[in-house]
């Protein structure tokens, strides 16, 4: 009885999983077809697996440079968010005072502000100071990413006993050394969570880069994809090859880090 129930659940689960993958299947098989073949049939595999669409899409997307831009912006932003947020959370958790409570409250309440509410003044102010470029973008990511990251680090730091700090201090270490040599390494699990949440967000972000980056050659993948799609909107075979290319780096990342990713996302939401 119990067994038969489990088999039914399993069959249902597998059927749903196939349904979930269907959009990716459709994107993939049609990305190899010619324009005419898509017009005739969208559901079966292509007659021939031709890479012509991919060659065109690869060149038009300037794929290697676009990929490099995305990697550069994501990696630099995430590294800085991790380091600066951990430092800030450490200060807030170790100096219990009205000031710390106020600052922590400030960071948490900043999470309530939707991007659209600050978007217009942000862009005009940064524009006036000539900061609408990749450097400015990274700085903005630190500002927008700090709140959640500090919140997560703060929660984790409350479980790290202060006696550790004291012991290291007696041995003659200063604050800076205590933090980087003793505390930061202990925080590794939450660092993974913070890094993953910020990687997913920054890698996929479209709106902020679209407002900040306006020189050809600096575009990230979502930004370039938007222009590319606009140009090839009636040519689905090329658009789909471009979309598949854009997804490949994410699939590789997921393949190697799926356990940490799912754990990180779950921890980030639940805590």
């Amino acid at each position, binding site marked *: 009885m119990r067994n038969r129930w*489990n088999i039914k659940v*399993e069959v249902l*689960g*597998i059927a*749903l*999983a196939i349904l*979930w993958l269907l*959009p990716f299947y*459709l*994107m993939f098989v*049609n990305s190899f077809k010619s324009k005419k073949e898509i017009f005739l*049939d*969208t559901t079966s595999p292509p007659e021939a697996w031709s890479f012509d669409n991919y060659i065109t899409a690869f060149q038009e997307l300037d794929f290697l440079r676009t990929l490099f831009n995305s990697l550069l912006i994501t990696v630099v932003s995430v590294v800085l968010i991790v380091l*600066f947020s951990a*430092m*800030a959370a450490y*200060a807030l958790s*170790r100096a219990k*005072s009205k*000031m710390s409570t106020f*600052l922590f409250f*400030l*960071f948490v309440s*900043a999470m*309530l*502000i*939707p*991007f*659209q*509410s*600050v*978007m*217009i*003044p942000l862009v*005009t*102010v940064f524009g006036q100071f000539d900061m609408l470029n990749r450097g400015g973008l990274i*700085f*903005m990511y*630190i500002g927008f990413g*700090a709140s959640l990251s*500090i919140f997560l680090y703060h929660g984790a730091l409350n479980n790290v006993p202060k006696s550790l700090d004291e012991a290291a201090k007696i041995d003659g270490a200063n*604050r800076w050394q205590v933090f980087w040599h003793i505390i930061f390494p202990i925080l590794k699990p939450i660092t993974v969570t913070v890094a993953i949440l910020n990687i*997913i967000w920054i890698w*996929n*972000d*479209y*709106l902020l880069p679209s407002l900040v980056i306006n020189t050809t050659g600096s575009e990230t993948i*979502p930004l370039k*994809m938007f222009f590319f*799609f606009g140009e090839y909107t009636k040519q*689905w075979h090329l658009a789909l090859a471009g979309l598949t290319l854009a*997804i490949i780096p*994410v699939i590789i*990342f*997921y393949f190697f880090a*799926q356990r940490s990713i*799912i754990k990180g*996302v779950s921890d980030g*939401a*639940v805590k």
Partner: protein
Amino acid sequence: MRTKDLSYWLFLAPVLLALGLVVVVPMVLGLFYSFTAWNGIQTGEFVGFQNYINLFTDERFLDSLWFTTKFSVVSVILINFIGLSLALIVTSKIKTSSLLRTTFFMPNLIGGLILGFIWQFIFLKVFASVGEAVDMESLQAWLSTTETGFWGLVILMSWQMAGYIMVIYIAYLEGLPKELIEAAEIDGASTPQRFRYIIFPLVAPAFTVSMFLTLSNTFKLYDQNLSLTAGGPYNSTEMVAMEIFKTAFVQNAFAYAQAKAIIFFLIVAVISLVQVYINKRREVEM
């Protein structure tokens, strides 16, 4: 470490600088500009509440607000229902559990912009060709009406976010004490009874988190809206985030758009606070 120590401020300096210049200053400036005739370059004259008063007769803004509300309510219900169902499936004793989790979660890693383009292809091309093959009129011309645009967005978001919400429910379901459920089983509680009286109350905190996340995500939606329907046909599937964007950067009505942005902030903040408050109270009662 004490508040008056220099090291305290050095540890905090980078994030305070970034948060200050990126969030606090624009927020304060934005609030100020929303009471002026700001055009992006000059502050212009002080107009009091005029921008806010104009909002109430701005049909396009009110329509987008109504569309966003309908979309959010339907999506929140569907995403949570599907997410919880998927979580119950993958936490039962089945062999493919981890493979299924990986699959359901996958769409969350890919950006909304790209997912919207993929689904545009499905709704426009695949639906049309399948509709022709099985002779179903209702599969033709998707995204060309307000209704199909609405459901297109709902389907896209449910497909994308259900796996995310599933992960949250899994965290709570796997944290349930097994002895409690087994004890209920021995006492003769049926499956629906066990669900209603034991599992449901214990996973109540998961509802707080999930409802909050889905509501704020769907209410603030922009990327998927842009790539799937771009607000069409005739701006009828335009959500608030996109409406604010267009008021600012297409019509160049900066101060007016900023007033909309402030109202948007107030709605999002109130929803978040009310939801957390209600759910916290319910958890305690249970």
